[in-house]
């Protein structure tokens, strides 16, 4: 028996920062950055290339994210993540349904690219895997002066 990656369970996103304005938004249009931690319970090291993922809430797309050079080592791994999200859609979701600013995020792999080449053998695997996690964007909103308690709802 070999220990596998178990659907990347335990993946978590932290240190969310919302970027706004020309000064902050990255050259590729990324308007949200964060750290992503991926535990690797196996003894395998994997170079997965540049990984992009689609982000959705309740099945509705809210953006996409990139983890550059995802070189997964055994044990704990932390990578910077840059994301292009529909900030208005996120605010709308918080206002209408997720008043505590905790979004049930659905992350599905999209592409794996190394040296400009698609690595279909990794793409096939990550495309068929959905990671669900609750992402608290409250602190990131507070950082840019948006207080979620001022939103309606309960």
């Amino acid at each position, binding site marked *: 028996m070999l220990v596998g990656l178990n659907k990347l369970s335990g993946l978590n996103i932290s240190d969310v920062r919302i970027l706004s304005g020309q000064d902050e938004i990255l050259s590729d249009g990324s308007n949200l950055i964060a750290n992503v931690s991926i535990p690797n319970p196996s003894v395998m090291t994997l170079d997965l290339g540049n990984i992009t993922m689609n982000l959705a809430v309740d099945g509705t797309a809210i953006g996409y994210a990139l983890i550059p050079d995802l070189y997964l080592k055994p044990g704990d791994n932390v990578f910077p993540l840059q994301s292009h999200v529909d900030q208005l859609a996120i605010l709308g979701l918080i206002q209408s349904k997720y008043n505590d600013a905790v979004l049930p995020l659905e992350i599905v792999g999209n592409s794996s690219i190394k040296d400009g080449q698609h690595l279909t053998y990794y793409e*096939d695997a990550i495309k068929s895997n959905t990671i669900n996690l609750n992402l608290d964007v409250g602190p990131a909103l507070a950082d840019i002066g948006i207080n979620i308690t001022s939103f309606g709802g309960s």
Partner: protein
Amino acid sequence: MIIVLVIVLPIIFVGIPNKAQHEINSSTLEVTAQEVTNPQSNGVHLKIDTVIRSGSSYHPKIDSFKAGLSLPGQDPFIYITIPEAKSEAETRVTVDQDVIFASDVEFSSYTKAVLDSETIQIHLDGKTNIHLSGLPTMDVDYNKVITMKGMSHCSYSKN
């Protein structure tokens, strides 16, 4: 003389090869580390550190051989070259080579299994020759299910 040969030859040509095959079959192969790097569209660089454990009192030389790696019941996703080794109670063998996928479809199935599963089974299959001094070369089948411990187990064993 003929009587002696009738007794001795079956031992050399049948008994000992059967015993050798049995010893190979009862040895275990554990992967202690695996690195899949330099990913290309048709292959990767693969480094696998293994420990082969055998309770045999014989310590034959095992020829280098080509082995297929596969998921249970599937065709191999890659072939690797296992280097020549002298069998001991614990033999460390490292495979460190560029490999081309034997089948893109099978390699995709393998990466999917690695990502999706808590544990997976990988089969390693090949044929090789073993040499024990004074005896004719013996052909053996080398069929193993690879074991690989998880991180927690690994760090535990180092303490």
